[in-house]
């Protein structure tokens, strides 16, 4: 009896050893992956920061001009001998398009999520969920192409102007981020525990009161996160926007005039500049803004996430 127990222990020890070996191998493998990811991220950050800042350090560009100037012509210098790098029109364009898209897509997405989870869960699961998953997977160039062939002509017929502009960009982007935001909002709403819904109903509230005062209120951090994810996506989207916004580097006076965004200027300009030149560095500065913005969105999402778990 005793001997057998010892044998068993030896046996498990031996087995553990071989297990430990695979475990160590797995650990090193994942560690390598982590190191690699970190190294690549660091390299990208270094590149964007060093290139983006060199506009101001090497080429003597003015940070104030960059954020407040309205003319973009990095190849030329102004009367002070500084490159003309007024990025305000693009910054305004990007912020406008992102903000308005969120204002349109946010309520629609939350409405759709409520419908799918509270009003018609069966139809929601069977029909809407697959449709949304399909929509999430459509490449942005397709959205842009549809925008170019449908939205732009439509706006041209209804409003004065060419149809290109912030309005067209906003419509395309709203539709594009809608599925993502809806599916995140749905997750947030569905994660509200059933016990809270039942408690609300048991207190004599109607279904709508339950949805508005308990479900939405409880899901609020998650819903905000969904909208911010959508905004991050809208802010960073280049292709679809560039196809419909008109690409004029001026601050537009209406939503129906050609404008541009940081991303559209980047994609438009990339092919025509040479590495190391001031025109190229100026584009890196725009890339730096994009990077900082996405960092900003990530931090907000993090903060909301923390607040939620606390």
């Amino acid at each position, binding site marked *: 009896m005793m001997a057998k127990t010892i044998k068993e222990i030896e046996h498990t020890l031996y087995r553990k050893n071989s297990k430990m070996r695979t475990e160590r191998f797995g650990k090193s493998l994942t560690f390598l992956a982590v190191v690699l990811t970190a190294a690549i991220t660091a390299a990208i950050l270094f590149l964007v920061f060093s290139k983006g800042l060199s506009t101001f350090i090497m080429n003597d560009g003015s940070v104030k001009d960059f954020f407040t100037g309205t003319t973009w012509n990095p190849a030329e210098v102004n009367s002070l001998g500084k490159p003309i790098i007024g990025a305000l029109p693009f910054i305004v364009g990007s912020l406008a398009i992102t903000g308005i898209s969120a204002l349109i897509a946010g309520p629609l997405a939350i409405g759709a999520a409520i419908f799918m989870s509270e009003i018609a869960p069966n139809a929601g699961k069977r029909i809407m969920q697959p449709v949304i998953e399909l929509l999430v997977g459509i490449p942005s160039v397709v959205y842009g192409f549809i925008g170019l062939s449908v939205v732009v002509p439509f706006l041209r017929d209804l409003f004065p102007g060419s149809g290109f502009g912030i309005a067209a960009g906003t419509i395309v982007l709203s539709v594009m981020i809608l599925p993502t935001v809806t599916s995140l909002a749905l997750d947030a709403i569905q994660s509200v*525990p059933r*016990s*809270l819904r*039942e*408690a*609300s*109903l*048991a*207190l*004599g*509230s*109607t279904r709508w*009161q339950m949805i508005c*005062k*308990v479900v939405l*209120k*409880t899901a609020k951090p998650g819903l905000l996160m969904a909208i911010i994810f959508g905004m991050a996506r809208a802010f960073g989207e280049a292709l679809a926007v560039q196809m419909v916004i008109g690409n004029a580097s001026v601050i537009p006076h209406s939503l129906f005039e050609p404008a541009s965004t940081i991303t559209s200027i980047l994609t438009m300009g990339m092919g025509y500049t040479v590495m190391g030149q001031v025109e190229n560095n100026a584009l890196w500065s725009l890339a730096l803004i994009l990077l900082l913005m996405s960092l900003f969105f990530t931090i907000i999402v993090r903060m909301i996430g923390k607040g939620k778990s606390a």
Partner: protein
Amino acid sequence: MNVVESIERSVIQTEDLQFYYNTHHALKNINLKFEEKKITALIGPSGCGKSTFLRTMNRMNDLIPGVRTEGAIWIGNENITEPSIDPVELRKKVGMVFQHASVFPFSIYENIAYGPRTHGERNKKVLDEIVEENLRAAALWDEVKDHLDHPATGLSGGQQQRLTIARTLATKPEILLMDEPTSALDPISTAKVEDLIRTLKERYTIIIVTHNMQQAARISDFTAFFLNGEVKEYGQTATLFTNPLFSETKDYIAGKFG
């Protein structure tokens, strides 16, 4: 089943109540009378239908698809199983406390004010009074009065359960249904909630599900023993516990099964 004492002044009476989850016959022929301002304990082994029965009385089972109720539940002179009865109005009259304290992730104040607010109370002063009165009634006021604006989720389990009781009281019910309200609590919190339930008897008709025989014996006036969806035995708690009619009742109380 066997009604030992004929019960006068009953506010709730069920008549041949049947309940089905799709094809599963979960409640069979329930005929019970509940007396006003008394505590009735529902006991019985797991899965015998106690929660189901409780939830027929405030129509919470309506939320589950494919269920069917037959027979009648009279509250006063209304049969609340009728489709014409608005469950929202019914639930204002018949409050429910759940096994796991389901406090809303709002402040303590907002938790109590939730019911009255949804019923249309807007006056801040009235709400303040309601909050204080019901926290006092739930013996929680002294513990939380200085931080009513703190999140309710920060309270201890026992405090949370008393908060959900206060929250239910704030909707001014006449009848309180409690489904194992202390099963997730430690002995001290349990004692506090039990004390609370005893004081509430003065104002409310209480039906409480419990797996704790001592608790049923301590706090209830009447006890109904459920078995396989039926009421096996019903009577005054003292009688049922000391002198049960059926051997099943005796065995269950003695802890031989369940």
